[in-house]
């Protein structure tokens, strides 16, 4: 038969047994849909964590007070008191340190903020104008802190968008409004652009005030929580780490680097740890996806093999009416291909739709894993074609009467 004829015959055969067609297709749809949805979600969460960490600044080093050998990543508000404003100034003005562009001394604590009848507990960050450069912070309205604010110990605050929506839910412009932080009155001078993130990663629920004001007026301390440093480029990160490290060791009069009273880590360190966690998560999802692909595949296989008796009789009948071996095989191949293509397409739509819905519910970016699509369609397509074609090839070799009598 001609190609088009074969296709029509295959379509008619598929319509003839709607239940079989539906079940075989269901196997393909489930297999492909599950793999695409799960793998895409895994990749989306991995990507989210990465972009959030990268949005902190890719050339950034963080110097934290506290011992190096205590290991791991310490909280920014760790209890150490070994970093001072003078350390930060010395790093910025040192001629030995050639790879550092900007130095941002910081002090961060949580405190109560009150604005009229609204209040919330947010992160209070004492900083200098360098913070905006190092952390890539921009303002959506008003302005950022100036050197005069810091030098004059001004009571001004730049708020993050989350803090704004919590404190000024009416939507009126907060610029020039008065807020109270730890019962000290501040004037709002700017709002930062959203950096995104949820939960502990939320960088938008924040009030940034001059470092001097934070240290002397609000928290009553004279040390720093951390020093953020921007290297001149991503290529000199290691050099910058060494230069800053040895410079601080010398300043703190420590000879054994293992006894340093501070630690330095880069975004890469954090990224590495986070990627490991999300990588495990993605592997888990891929495992589940593989199982669903297997289950879907076995479903297709069962449906194809269970109907062999009925199909063998059909083959016997067609052969007794003049079908050649290749007519039979190409009809069954066309059936399997139609099943796989239609089922694969439906599975893809369902998989993509599912990952779109779930990722938007979870606040993740929508990603489509091309390799998952190829793998899923490849595997279920191969299963569909092999188990659709294998019994047909066997039946086509029988004499028509053997096939008609098959049981």
């Amino acid at each position, binding site marked *: 038969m001609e190609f088009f004829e074969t296709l029509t015959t295959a379509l008619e055969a598929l319509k*003839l047994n709607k239940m079989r067609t539906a079940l075989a297709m269901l196997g393909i749809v489930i297999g492909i849909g599950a793999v695409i949805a799960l793998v895409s979600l895994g990749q989306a969460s991995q990507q989210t964590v990465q972009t959030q960490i990268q949005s902190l600044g890719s050339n950034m080093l963080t110097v934290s007070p506290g011992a190096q050998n205590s290991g791991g990543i310490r909280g920014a508000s760790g209890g150490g008191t070994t970093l001072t404003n003078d350390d930060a100034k010395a790093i910025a003005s040192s001629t030995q340190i050639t790879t550092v562009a900007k130095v941002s001394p910081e002090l961060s604590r949580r405190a109560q903020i009150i604005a009229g009848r609204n209040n919330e507990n947010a992160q209070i960050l004492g900083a200098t104008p360098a913070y905006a450069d190092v952390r890539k912070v921009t303002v959506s309205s008003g302005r950022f802190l100036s050197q005069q604010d810091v030098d004059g110990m001004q009571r001004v605050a730049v708020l993050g968008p989350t803090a704004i929506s919590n404190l000024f839910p009416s939507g009126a412009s907060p610029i020039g409004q008065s807020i109270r932080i730890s019962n000290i009155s501040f004037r709002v001078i700017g709002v930062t652009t959203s950096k995104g993130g949820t939960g502990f990663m939320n960088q938008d629920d924040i009030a940034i005030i001059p470092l001097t004001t934070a240290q002397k007026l609000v928290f009553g301390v004279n040390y720093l929580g951390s020093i953020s440093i921007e290297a001149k480029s991503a290529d000199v990160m290691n050099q910058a780490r060494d230069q800053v490290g040895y410079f601080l060791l010398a300043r703190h009069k420590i000879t054994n680097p293992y006894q340093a009273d501070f630690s330095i880590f880069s975004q890469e360190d954090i990224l590495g740890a986070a990627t490991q966690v999300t990588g495990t998560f993605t592997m888990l999802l891929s495992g589940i996806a593989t199982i669903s692909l297997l289950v879907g595949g076995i479903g297709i296989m069962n449906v194809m093999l269970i109907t062999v008796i009925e199909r063998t009789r059909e083959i016997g009948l*067609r052969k007794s009416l*003049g079908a*050649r*071996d290749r007519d039979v095989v190409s009809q069954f191949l066309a059936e399997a291909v139609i099943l796989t293509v239609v089922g694969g397409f439906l599975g893809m739509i369902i998989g993509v739709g599912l990952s779109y819905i779930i990722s938007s519910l979870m606040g993740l970016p929508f990603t489509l894993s091309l390799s998952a699509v190829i793998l899923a369609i490849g595997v279920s397509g191969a299963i569909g074609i092999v188990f659709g074609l294998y019994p047909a090839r066997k039946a086509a070799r029988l*004499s028509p009467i053997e096939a008609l009598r098959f049981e």
Partner: protein
Amino acid sequence: MAGANATNYGRPIIQVSHLSKVYSNDSVETVALADVSFEVREGEFVAIMGPSGSGKSTLMHILGALDTPTSGTYVLDGKNVGQLSRDELAAIRNKNIGFVFQAYNLLPRTTALKNVMIPMAYARVPKTERLKRATALLDRVGLGDRIDHASNQLSGGQQQRVAIARAMAMNPSIILADEPTGNLATAQGEEIIAIFQDLNDQGHTIVMITHEPYIAEHAKRTVFIQDGRIVKDTDSHTSKRAFVQKEH
């Protein structure tokens, strides 16, 4: 269609000699056909009779190129069927022979029209021509008003008439029927036989297995089979010819 020989039929179209068929299942050997030789000439209407299990269906399947003999030769229209390729056998089943089964063997849940068109699809007959021919054939077997009925919505007699129309789809010169009335009531059987009679009158060669002596009476010749052997043939010409061939 008048032949040169005395019996007034055409040339031999089916010639089998020393045909045997042995089924071996699980070390049990069943001899279904043992050394069968006979001839059918163009335009004949042959009835094959014999007790159940005597090998009638086995012989018919070999004649229809649906099965192969264990030994012996089958010459169809001058061609040695045993030496044909699988595709050539398919072409014979498609064009030279129409086969009518006792159990109708229609494609289920498929209309009468589509069932009749199947052999034409394998012969690459153009679609419009297929439709025209299938409609005409169904009309001829008295089912002109049932062409769009699914096969399982038809009575046994109607299904068998669809099967005959399908066997006629490629206008084969030979029609083989294995107990075509076996599943039918007498009245329906009579209608079916009338159709075969009509086809024979138009020159088609017909070989039909039957249990009913009254049906065999329609045939011009009856061959009796028992235990895989021909025990009686109302036409003496065939056995003589087979004997002569054996001498060669």
